[in-house]
């Protein structure tokens, strides 16, 4: 095959074994993950919707939000965006059966996730020491609920990626590992998308 004359999109399509046509062509695992993410949209959507409605009703969230540390929040956003990159690179490496690339990128994703949690705990400590706890007011109830729930989801993602990292080190067969990295990646990117909206909502209000 002459690679110089073949266009890159054709190359990707030719190697992509998932036929887009037909419901039965969607791998059950992928369908299940998307179904789960759809339910999570309802969970976070409910919280975010309530936040917006309370803000519209009372309009005093800006004063409380001024006490959040937007610089740490911005740093965490950069961390999570970069972790999304390392996660998709892990999937790309797994698809190409690149063992070293898969392990390195999964490790980087786990590491960045832990950095995010570390920074978040520093934020929580600062806010709690200033007297801002969930019972302080409506904004802080939402703040701790939304960021806490997001943090729990992140812990789940870190756990899953750690398990996959161990599986990659133990050289699990690619037929299994590749799909699992893909599904874990879908979940991880979803957690990132949630933060993309949470950050401006809470910190930049």
């Amino acid at each position, binding site marked *: *095959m002459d*690679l110089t004359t073949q266009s*890159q999109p054709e*190359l*990707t399509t030719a*190697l*992509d074994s998932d036929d*887009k046509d037909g*419901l039965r*062509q*969607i791998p059950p695992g*992928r*369908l299940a993950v*998307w*179904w789960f*993410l*759809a*339910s999570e*949209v*309802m969970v976070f*959507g*409910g919280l975010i*919707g309530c936040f*917006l*409605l309370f*803000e*519209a*009703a*009372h*309009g005093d969230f*800006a004063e409380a939000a001024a006490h959040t540390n*937007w610089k740490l929040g*911005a740093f965490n*956003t*950069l961390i999570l*965006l*970069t972790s*999304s*990159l390392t*996660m*998709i*690179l892990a999937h*790309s*490496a797994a*698809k*190409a*059966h*690149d063992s070293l*690339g898969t392990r390195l990128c999964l490790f980087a994703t786990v590491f960045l996730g832990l950095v995010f949690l570390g920074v978040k705990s520093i934020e929580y400590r600062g806010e709690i020491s200033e007297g801002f706890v969930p019972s302080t007011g409506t904004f802080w109830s939402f703040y701790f609920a939304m960021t806490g729930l997001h943090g729990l989801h992140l812990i789940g993602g870190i756990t899953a990626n750690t398990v996959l990292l161990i599986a990659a080190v133990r050289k699990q067969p690619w037929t299994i590992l590749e799909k699992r990295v893909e599904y874990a*990646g*879908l979940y991880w*990117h*979803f957690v*990132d*998308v949630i933060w*993309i*909206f949470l*950050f*401006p909502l809470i910190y*930049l209000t």
Partner: protein
Amino acid sequence: MDSIERDDQRFRNKLYFAIWTWLLLLFGVGMAVFALNLTRKMAATLIFGLAAIKAVLVLRYYMHLKREHVLIYLMVVVPLLFFAAFALSLVPDIVWRHGFRG
């Protein structure tokens, strides 16, 4: 690793790095908007608009929604519509009871 797979991986990775660069740029623009002295409504519109663009980039290119079956699209869109419907259905009640302070 087969050379075709390696080339395919390189092409994919270039795209992913390009998307990541765009995400960082959009994030930077959002922070610049935050630093400007715009009205609250304008700043909120711009910042959330940028957040929506970032979300679409992640969904299309990192979550591969660009080449997924229409059922997967529905799984993403329908819950969002439900969420919007629930939120909007309560707006008249808030306006009636509290007045709109947003």
